[in-house]
Every structure is written in C-alpha cells, then in structure tokens.
C-alpha cells in the first residue's frame, strides 16, 4: 500500500502494529460467547443428543425430519405473517404517519406538538417485551379482558372472542400487537429522514399543482429510501428472531397456531430434550437471516450506486 492510498487516520499512526492488542479482549470474548457456541450448534445439528452423555452423529437426519415436520412449516408460515406485522405494515403506516406529522402538524401546530405525538407512537418500543405480553394478554383475555368488556359495553358483545386462545384468531391478534409495538420506530426514522428533503423540491411540486399525495409518493418516499431500507432490514431480522411476545402471549399455541422458529427451538432444547433437532431449527434460521441480510445489503448498495 502506498502512502497516497492510505487513509488519513492510518497516516497519523506510524504503522499498524500495536493496535491488535486493543482488539484482543473483544475478539477473545466474542470467540467464547458467540463463535464457539454458533459453530457448536451447527455441529450438534448433525447429531442426536438429549443434553447429557455423548452426542451421536446422525448425518442430516434432523434436517430431513425437519422438512417433513408440519410444526416446522407452520412456524415458518407464522414467521412470514410476523414479518408482515413487524416490518411491512409498520413501514407503510409509518411512512404515512411520519409524512402527516411532518407536513401538517409540524409547520402549523409547532414542532413541539409533532414531537409529542411522535414520542407517543414510540413509547411502546421501550417497554420490555415481557411487559407488552402481559399488558396485551390481559386486554385480550376472554373472561376478564378489557377488549371483550369494551365490546360488550358498546353493544358489540357478539364480536367478543377468545382472541389469543382461538386457533382462527390467535395469529392475527399477535400480529396486531406486533404492529402496536413496532409502529414508533419507522415514525421516528422517517421523520428524521424527511428533514433532509430539500424544501425546494416541495415548492417546485406545489407550483406544478401537485397534490399532497403526489408530493408524498413521488418525492418524499423517494428521498428517504435509505431510511426505508434500514427500517425494513432491521425490522425483518427482528421479526425472524421474535421470541418474547410469543412466549408471554401464547406459548406458540393454541396447537401450533402461533408457533415461531425461536420458540420451536426453545421447546426442542428445554422441553423435549431434543438438542440436535433444536440446533437444526436454529441453524436454518441463522442461515436464512444471514442470507437475507446479505441480499438486502447488496440491493441497498446497488440502489446507492444508481442514485
């Protein structure tokens, strides 16, 4: 490497030696806590193991069993719905809400008011998932829950359901809760993104007689594409990993109506003592997440190059 191609930061320091020492504790810890367990899980997925004694090598048996297991397919079908509820719907709703707050509320009623509303949307994000689960578990409870009793009060008692206990509604109830949890994140991200948009673009559009919707869909959405990418990728990954809400709300039930991969793996590990099988589920999920992220980053990079 010649001096000219070196970064300024590298130029400042004479040589590279010595910095490796700073990396040592972090690299060691990451190896013990993340790399070794990750590789072990992959290894265990090719064995049959109850957690005690020696694992017995069984080749790809766990994987062939997995792909024939209806619980596995149910969990992946559910996770797709969770992605819709945690990534797709909040992104779409968040776009509209952020634009409305930014265009109507901010300029007319003051940024302070817009900020208060934005923070209201964001508040569910900071609650521990376990608490979210308890709050909604109670609201949706068939006997003493708030929702059914509200429905009763306004004369819509016939709409009352066992929201989380009925196979037909459980996953949709969970999805609704997820939208509630997630909505604040895109609103905050997109409102920050909208501040970058050059006001002159808007003025030019106004002069051309563009409606609010045209201005929103043709200019705003286009300008905050980087934020949209980031929100989509982070929420999709979060959705694929979802565990806490399911654990507290439904425990994957009734039946496998709300089963998700992480809870399925948890059950295999700690309830069925089928560690090899649980490891296979986890490994499939890990590969899926890494591949998806890689694809997202590629698309994003290509988008940036075009722009």
């Amino acid at each position: 490497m010649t001096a000219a191609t070196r970064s300024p930061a590298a130029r400042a320091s004479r040589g590279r030696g010595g910095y490796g020492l700073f990396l040592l504790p972090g690299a060691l810890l990451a190896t013990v806590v993340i790399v070794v367990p990750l590789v072990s899980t992959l290894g265990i997925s090719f064995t049959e193991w109850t957690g005690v004694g020696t694992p017995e090598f069984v080749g790809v048996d766990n994987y062939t069993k997995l792909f024939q297991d209806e619980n596995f397919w149910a969990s992946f079908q559910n996770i797709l719905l969770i992605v819709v509820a945690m990534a797709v719907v909040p992104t779409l709703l968040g776009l509209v809400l952020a634009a409305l707050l930014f265009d109507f509320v901010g300029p007319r009623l003051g940024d302070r008011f817009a900020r208060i509303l934005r923070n209201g949307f964001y508040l569910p994000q900071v609650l521990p998932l376990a608490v979210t689960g308890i709050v909604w578990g109670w609201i949706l409870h068939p006997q003493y829950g708030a929702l059914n009793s509200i429905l009763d009060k306004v004369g819509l008692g016939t709409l009352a359901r066992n929201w989380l206990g009925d196979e037909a509604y459980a996953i949709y109830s969970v999805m609704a809760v997820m939208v509630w949890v997630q909505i604040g994140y895109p609103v905050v991200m997109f409102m920050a993104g909208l501040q970058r948009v050059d006001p002159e673009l808007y003025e030019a559009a106004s002069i051309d007689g563009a409606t609010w919707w045209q201005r929103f869909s043709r200019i705003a959405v286009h300008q905050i594409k980087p934020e949209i990418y980031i929100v989509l990728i982070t929420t999709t990954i979060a959705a694929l990993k979802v565990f806490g809400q399911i654990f507290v709300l439904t425990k994957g039930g009734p039946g496998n109506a709300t089963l998700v991969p992480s809870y399925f793996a948890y059950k295999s590990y700690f309830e069925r003592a089928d560690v090899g099988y649980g490891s296979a589920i986890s490994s499939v999920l890990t590969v899926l997440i890494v591949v998806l992220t890689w694809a997202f980053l590629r698309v994003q990079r290509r988008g940036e190059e075009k722009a």
Partner: protein
Amino acid sequence: MKTRRFRPLTPIVAGVLTVVVLLVLAPMVLVALNAVKAPEEYSNKGPLSLPGGLYLAGIRTFWERVDFTQVLLNSVVISGCVAVLGVLLSILNAYALGIGRVRGRNWFLVAFLVANLVPQESLIYPLYYMATQLDLYDSKFTVIVIFTAIQSAFGTYLLSSVYREFPPELLDAAAIDGAGRWRTLWRVVVPVSRPTLGVLFTFFFVWTWNELFIPLIFLVSNENQTVPVALGVLQGERQMDATLTSASALLGIAPAVIFFLVFQRTLTRGVTAGAIK
C-alpha cells in the same frame, strides 16, 4: 407557501393523529387505571371505570410475592454492568478496527456484523452447557458476560464506522505531543466521541433491561431474576386476577417510561443517527 394549500385539512389531520396516538397509549392508561382498583370494583364495574380510590394492595402483593426490590436491583446491576463493559469493549475494538485499521479488519467487521444477526437460540444451548459444566449457571456474572459480548458486537460495528471518519488532525496533534496509543485513545478519541458513546450506553442499558430469552434460561432462582423474567414467569402461573396482572404490568411499565422520559433525546437521536434497531 409550501404548506398553504393544505391548511383547511390541518385541524382534521391533527385531530385524527391525536386520537391515534391516544389509542396507542390507551393500553398503558388502562393498565394504570386497573392496577389501583380493588378486585371487587373490577368485577362489578369492569376495566373502563375510573378507580373509586387508590387501592395499592395489588401492587404491594405483587411486590412482595416476587421480592420486586431485589428484582429491580438485579436488573439495574446487570444492565448497568453490561452497558459499561459493552461500551468499553466497543471502544477498544473500534479503536483497533476504525482508527488502527489492523490487518484483516474487514473480516473482523463482517464477523461482528454476523454476530449481531445470529439469533440467540443458535448460541443458547452450548452456552447453557458450558455454564453448567463450569458451575456458572444461574449467576448474574454469566449473563453479564454474555450480554457484554452480544451488545459490544453491535457497538463495535457502529463505532468502527464512526471512528473511520475520525478527524486525523486530532490524532496527528496527539502524536506530535508524544502521546502513545493508549493515551491518545483516552485523552482524544473517547472525549471527542462522547455523544456517540452516550447513545451506545443508553441503548445497551435499555436493551439488556428488556431481554427475556437468555435471562429466562440462565437466571432461574428468585434472587437472580430480572424484571422481565419475574413478570414473564408469574404470567405463566395463571393464578393472577385482572388487577394483580395490571399491577405487575404497571411495575414493568414504570421503569421503562422513566428511562424514556429521562433519555428521550438520546433515544430518538440514537435511533436515527446509528440506524439502531
């Protein structure tokens, strides 16, 4: 000029948005209302009535049943240690990768990114096995070590990209003053990047506070449980009535809302600045 055309709609939009925000907040308000209601009042008048008086027995019962003082303390200790250690480790890693540009830094960054993506169930069983073999199971120390590694993987990734843009003049000046790498780090790099470090600290604290999966598996005894674990486990017991459930939920919501109010600025700035999840 640019918003004039939309003026007649403004009150309607603002009204609708306010109602939507109130609906978003409604579950928490409902919880607060019912946490201070007597059980008889709840069964007679339902969840929507205003409480006739301040009935604190539900909160007290729950507090004593789970020894909430201890539980809160556990959460503070674990989240606080993880936040401090996680930020320290992120600084060291990012100093080597972002400013030091050690050989193979791109591979390290990819590794830290993947470490971020890995679902916890891919780590949990080997970690659980190691902990039981080494007699480190059911200990706050183990959970602190695990989360320090997980959070600093994210911190390293974020902070490395911040440090790549670190003003070289400052590093040059420190070198001219004869400062070694160690001193340059603590006297120049850390003070200059303090706002980012504050964001990282806040997020590490809140994320660790909210974690359920790993603490649920590693902290089984009552004296080690964190707030989410204590609430989650009790929820499973099903012998809770509506007011006791609300009381427990309120105790879970209160610290989170307090953080939110205290760290509002940092949180919203962090969300947007660092592309934090």
